[in-house]
């Protein structure tokens, strides 16, 4: 856009000739300061102007310039700079007003004349100490009033009394009870941890998850959208996810960032309060979270409640107070029941190996089992015992099917991580045997099939056709019979026992392996059933070492 520069209309004083002269001066000044700002002073020396004007035919120009400035003080002014006179105006057509420069504080002066260094005290300043806990100082104080000594009757000559005497208050002394700190040298860490949990665990101001504590108001909160994304991620992965993965993959916080530990704690604490949507299924070191709609880990051939009921006998056998993670490793011989369903019993040995629940009411824990021999890691689930169901581990179906047979010996070792375990078997040269299987193609039946395996086995527990041939083409027992351990023992005698007249005899180890085809049964439980049978169905076989007999027709 082009704008025409308008000359400011100025009223010049004087005669017409003087006005014309002043106008020509103004024009000269404005031509010089054409591109200057409106209020910037435009200066031309009087001598220079006079020289020019006189070259244009004006006479006595210098005096007339000074006179014109004097006649128009609002428009023109004369300044003396270094002994030379300058005619001054501005582009706005006004004589420049003397701008007062505020030199009290300038940026340059600030650097050139710095303030002297503040004097520091000789002793270093004390660090700010954390606020001391507020303690009710009056608590435990004993306030005792000290009685004033009895005044003897006055025998002194009375003196002139002062006009007013202030009443004397009785002297009081305060005896404070020394606040002796609780001596904790005799208290072990376990009891101190319990005491801390007892006092801080119920305080709503304190957030706690597992072994970590923080003030509740410092724990980051998650929006409903965040919680939905966490849930969706688990459902997309179709398996429980650790808190670390959730923080990294969903909340995009990197492990090296300073907030990682805080956000990780926030995930655990906040999700633990979302009971409807999320369930904690982890351990102290490996905190898995689950949500609804995830596929079940492990076998689907049998309901988890039914398996728990099968293991109910463990509730009576496991002594109270088994300390978790007190064993380094456990060796275990697989039974047929465990092999078929991919299970391990959560018996006393396993309870001493695995870690217990981290949060109150925790139903299960997802563990990782690493098999270095097959370079495979399996996700398994430890179901904790309930008041009427035993605990067990499930999810080892693939590991068993790929590497082991019923009767194989495996070793489970703990690692530094309480959620990660190493499982190994005894590698041996491959051999083939006719081993028991459950054929489920039509009506389920037990069959013997040639099986090649390359793992160490417990000889008595290997279900070969030579020793357990009586099971061939047998149907599994119905659930009603399975629920009664005595009925299972009786049926096993009939299947695999050695028939003597009307009785069946079986060696204990063989009987134990046979019983565990149908349902889990410990050595203790089986021995108890055989020894404490009041009906007379079972009795010790006097003709063979550690053998028992069963008399059919006697209802056990």
């Amino acid at each position: 856009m082009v704008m025409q520069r308008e000359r400011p209309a100025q009223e010049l004083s004087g005669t017409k000739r003087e006005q014309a002269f002043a106008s020509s001066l103004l024009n000269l000044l404005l031509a010089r300061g054409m591109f200057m700002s409106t209020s910037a002073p435009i200066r031309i020396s009087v001598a220079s102007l006079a020289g020019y004007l006189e070259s244009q035919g004006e006479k006595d120009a210098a005096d007339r310039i000074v006179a014109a400035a004097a006649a128009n003080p609002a428009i023109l002014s004369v300044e003396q700079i270094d002994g030379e006179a300058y005619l001054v105006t501005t582009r706005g057509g006004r004589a420049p007003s003397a701008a007062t420069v505020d030199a009290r504080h300038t940026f340059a002066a600030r650097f050139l004349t710095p303030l002297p260094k503040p004097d520091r005290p000789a002793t270093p300043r004390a660090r700010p100490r954390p606020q001391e806990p507020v303690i009710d100082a009056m608590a435990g104080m004993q306030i005792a009033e000290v009685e004033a000594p009895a005044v003897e009757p006055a025998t002194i000559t009375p003196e002139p009394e002062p006009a007013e005497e202030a009443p004397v208050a009785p002297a009081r002394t305060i005896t404070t009870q020394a606040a002796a700190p609780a001596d904790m040298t005799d208290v072990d860490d376990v009891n101190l941890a319990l005491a801390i949990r007892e006092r801080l665990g119920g305080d709503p101001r304190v957030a706690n998850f597992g072994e970590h504590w923080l003030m509740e108001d410092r724990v980051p909160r998650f929006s409903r959208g965040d919680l939905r994304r966490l849930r969706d991620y688990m459902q997309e992965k179709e398996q429980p996810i650790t808190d670390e993965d959730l923080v990294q993959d969903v909340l995009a916080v990197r492990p090296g960032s300073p907030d990682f530990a805080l956000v990780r704690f926030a995930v655990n604490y906040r999700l633990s309060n979302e009971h409807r949507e999320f369930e904690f299924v982890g351990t102290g070191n490996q905190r898995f979270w689950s949500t609804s709609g995830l596929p079940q880990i492990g076998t689907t051939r049998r309901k988890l409640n039914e398996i728990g009921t099968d293991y109910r006998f463990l509730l009576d056998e496991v002594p109270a107070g088994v300390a978790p993670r007190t064993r380094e490793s456990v060796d275990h011989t697989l039974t047929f029941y465990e092999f078929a369903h991919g299970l391990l019993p959560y018996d006393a040995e396993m309870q001493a190996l695995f870690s217990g629940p981290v949060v109150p009411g925790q139903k299960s824990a997802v563990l990782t089992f690493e098999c270095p021999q097959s370079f495979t890691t399996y996700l398994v689930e430890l179901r904790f015992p309930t008041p009427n169901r035993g605990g067990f581990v499930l999810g080892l179906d693939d590991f068993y099917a790929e590497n082991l047979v019923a009767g194989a010996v495996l070793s489970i070792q703990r690692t530094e991580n309480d959620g990660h375990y190493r499982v190994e078997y005894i590698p041996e040269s491959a051999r083939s045997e006719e081993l028991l299987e459950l054929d489920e193609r039509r009506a389920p039946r037990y069959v013997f099939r040639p099986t090649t395996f390359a793992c160490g086995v417990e000889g008595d527990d290997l279900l070969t056709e030579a020793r357990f041939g009586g099971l061939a083409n047998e149907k599994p027992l119905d659930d009603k019979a399975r629920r009664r351990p005595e009925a299972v023992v009786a049926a096993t005698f009939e299947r695999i026992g050695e028939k003597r007249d009307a009785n069946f005899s079986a060696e204990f180890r063989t009987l134990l392996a046979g019983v565990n085809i149908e349902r889990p049964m410990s050595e203790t439980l089986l021995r108890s059933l055989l020894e404490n049978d009041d009906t007379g169905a079972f009795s010790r076989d006097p003709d063979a070492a550690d053998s028992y007999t069963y008399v059919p027709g006697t209802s056990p």
Partner: protein
Amino acid sequence: MAAQDGAREGATHHLGEDDVAYLMNLLRNATQPVTTQELIDALRRQSGGSSGEAEDGE
């Protein structure tokens, strides 16, 4: 320590009010989660420091 243990057995030692106030103060000043073991160590330090001061005073 597992939750199971806490449920199974109660604490034989109980924290005093000053211990609880000290722990709360510790947590107020914390910007990252504090472990139970760190709280235990802090309690022991406080107990040791206080008893040491008391002995010095005597």
